[in-house]
């Protein structure tokens, strides 16, 4: 395979596509599939057969189109019309009106410049929902593997690393470590063997970015890893993907096979001297294996437990060799950076946080879904414009970012620009991109308890502060939600939070108290109410305000102003 042949494949596939009069893309990702999109594809096929246009229309299942809350989604080309909430009886209308008469079905249409899309900027998600994730030709026809070819053909190893450094890209798994610096460290270490590992062990409650990317455009991740492999001098890559994502695993397997067949992965890639293979390793369901040292242990076949750092994996990693470990989204950004240059990427975002970030919107928000926005976009824009605000006339109470390691952002910080520094400053963190919106029906003590329960269940048990500390924290929070806690319990809770944060071995324990600390900071009155008045403002904890001086009607949800 040469560069020309790669272009030929893309050109050939585009010619094939141009033979079709129309294309119908049915979203097949989690949200849409569960609302019945898989039957839609069959129905479209039957409808086309009945109208004898089956050979003129290309009907495919794609990855996530973003607007999951309004699924099932269908996109019709060439007019690029997105139809939302498509039901079986809408199929005839779409076929008869749009496909046959070229008249858009207006009542199902979501405009491409609508509020959900207007402020987004797609880089990592660019081709997702627009290509067939099981076809490498489709990916190549959309410019896929061009970046890898460009890197291998025109760039030195240092050159690729320099582009990544110039881009200002920072690790998208949550830590925000400068990616270019990491690549450079691994490149500089002299070792006969090096590894590139992709962390796809996404496990934060409410997060589905990596899953959507792997299911919707697996080749982008493979390409990013191959570019990284070339840049740091590695010949073997591993994708550590969690076992709960069977479709992602299947798609990745297929994608790796296709790439090997075309000599885009394997030996002598694109007729160069560069060899690179990628294998999958399937996680067995432990959240802590998303921590890099535990992940490495797990790949080696050991018990997935973190070890103290330093040494960092970039020096002593998989099987003791220098290892480059990045998140799915980080790798998915690499091809675009190589293709357009680091400077182009660094123009997007804020001064210290460059580029875009993918978020998974979940919770009490109208447009549940997957979005990608430039860094520095305000939380208000994300929740109220892109997200469409709170459904059922609800009142925004808090946004939770960073999963069990993050914190809650209250209404007074709604104008915070979303970037690494700003979020850390207000006691939350960027995290991997889960963003859960809560309204007045959420009790913040209960939310803190939920995340603490998660951390205690997922603690590996190696270090004492995390193993026992999280259990004690959970019990204290449980006492509060039952209305049995005292002021002394609150003191112990606060003291223990600081201690677990300061003394735990790995990131899981060090960040486990964050949800408690941030809710204590912003919603302290709720804790006080639970303790001294046995009163839960959101009526979640079932306390009925036994000791509350002013009796509230327990049937309705009371609303108070949060400060």
């Amino acid at each position, binding site marked *: 395979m040469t560069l020309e042949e790669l272009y030929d494949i893309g050109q050939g596939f585009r010619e094939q596509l141009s033979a079709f009069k129309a294309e119908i893309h049915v979203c097949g990702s989690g949200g849409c599939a569960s609302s019945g999109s898989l039957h839609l594809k069959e129905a479209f096929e039957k409808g086309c057969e009945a109208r004898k246009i089956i050979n003129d229309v290309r009907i495919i299942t794609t990855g996530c189109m973003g607007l999951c809350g309004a699924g099932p989604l269908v996109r019709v080309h060439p007019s690029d019309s997105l139809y939302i909430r498509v039901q079986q009886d809408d199929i005839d209308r779409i076929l008869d009106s749009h496909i046959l008469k070229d008249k858009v079905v207006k009542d199902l249409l979501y405009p491409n410049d609508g509020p959900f899309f207007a402020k987004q900027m797609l880089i990592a998600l660019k081709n997702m929902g627009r290509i067939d994730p099981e076809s490498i030709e489709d990916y190549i026809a959309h410019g896929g593997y061009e970046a890898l070819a460009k890197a291998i053909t025109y760039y030195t190893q240092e050159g690729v690393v320099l582009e990544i450094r110039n881009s200002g890209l920072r690790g998208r798994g949550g830590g925000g470590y400068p990616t270019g610096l990491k690549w450079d460290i691994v490149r500089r270490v002299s070792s006969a063997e090096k590894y590139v590992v992709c962390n796809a062990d996404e496990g934060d409650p409410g997060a589905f970015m990596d899953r959507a990317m792997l299911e919707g455009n697996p080749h982008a991740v493979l390409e990013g890893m191959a570019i990284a492999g070339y840049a740091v001098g590695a010949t073997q890559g591993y994708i550590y993907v969690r076992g709960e994502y069977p479709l992602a695993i299947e798609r990745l397997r297929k994608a790796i096979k296709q790439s090997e067949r075309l000599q885009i992965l394997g030996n002598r890639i694109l007729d160069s001297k560069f060899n690179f293979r990628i294998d999958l390793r399937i996680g067995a369901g432990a959240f802590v294996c998303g921590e890099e040292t535990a992940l490495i242990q797990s790949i080696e076949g050991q018990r997935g437990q973190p070890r103290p750092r330093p040494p960092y994996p970039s020096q002593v990693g998989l099987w003791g060799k220098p290892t480059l470990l990045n998140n799915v989204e980080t790798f998915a950004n690499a091809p675009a950076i190589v293709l357009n240059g680091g400077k182009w990427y660094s123009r997007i975002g804020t001064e210290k946080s460059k580029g875009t970030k993918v978020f998974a919107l979940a919770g009490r928000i109208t447009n549940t879904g997957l979005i990608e926005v430039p860094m520095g976009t305000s939380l208000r824009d994300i929740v109220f414009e892109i997200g469409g605000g709170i459904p059922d006339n609800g009142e925004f109470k808090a946004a939770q970012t960073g999963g069990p390691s993050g914190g809650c952002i209250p209404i007074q910080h709604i104008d915070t620009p979303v970037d690494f520094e700003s979020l850390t400053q207000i006691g939350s963190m960027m995290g991997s991109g889960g963003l859960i919106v809560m309204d007045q029906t959420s009790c913040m003590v209960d939310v803190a308890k939920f995340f603490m329960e998660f951390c205690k*269940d997922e603690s590996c048990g190696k270090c*004492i502060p995390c*193993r*026992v500390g999280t*259990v004690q924290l959970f019990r204290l929070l449980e006492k509060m939600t039952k209305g049995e806690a005292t002021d002394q319990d609150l003191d112990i809770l606060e003291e223990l939070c600081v201690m677990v944060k*300061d003394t735990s071995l790995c990131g899981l324990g060090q960040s486990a108290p964050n949800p408690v600390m941030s809710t204590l900071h912003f919603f302290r009155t709720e804790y006080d109410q639970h303790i001294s008045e046995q009163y839960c403002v959101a009526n979640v904890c079932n306390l009925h305000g036994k000791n509350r001086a002013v009796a509230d009607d327990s049937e309705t949800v009371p609303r108070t102003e949060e400060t």
Partner: protein
Amino acid sequence: MEEIRTLTIDDNLISATASSSILLAAREHGIEIPTLCHLDGLGDIGACRLCIVEIEGQNKLQPACVTRVEENMVVKTKSPRLDKYRRMIVELLFAEGNHVCSVCVVNGHCELQDIGYSVGMDFVRFEYLHQDKRVDATHERFVLDHNRCILCTRCVRVCDEIEGAHTWDIAGRGIDCFVITDLATEWGASTSCTSCGKCTLVCPTGALFEKGKPVTSLSRNRDFLQYIVNAREKHEWFKK
């Protein structure tokens, strides 16, 4: 000759070989740092967090057992904050297991007990978990009492690193972790156990002990560890 690093620990100017840990350097100069999972002669894992120290210029506390000395490093092993954290760690351990000293074989020779005294723990603020744990007395010579196990993994490491049998390992997650022999079979049914008894000698508490010992009678001689390590690494085949 190995390179020498000079550093300050608790206002003492100290020199140590470049490969030594802060813990080793401190102990060589008579500065005591409390530890539970560390044992001379075994590999360090940095798990018990008792040996955490403050290093100037670093926000995070670092475990002294796995942090190497560096030139001009300034280390503090004692501070009100560290004292408080160490005490809390010990309290957490006492609340986790079922540690009843008066009926324990190692009463008076127990490292957990000693550390409890040294950090000044006179009561436990946390709720006792009273977990339902088992006792495995199926081995003909030894007993494993999970109630007293603090999961320091010394037994796992001595069996793997010194005896070479790797009979012991850890199963479960978080608070439900427990030590196992072979694939979680009864100790007596273990096919890999050589009955050498090293695990019972390194155990810091009364979790592992020899049968037939009356309460408070068990003191442990751990000289064998240094002897084996010296023999392997320095080829010194004599007991000091």
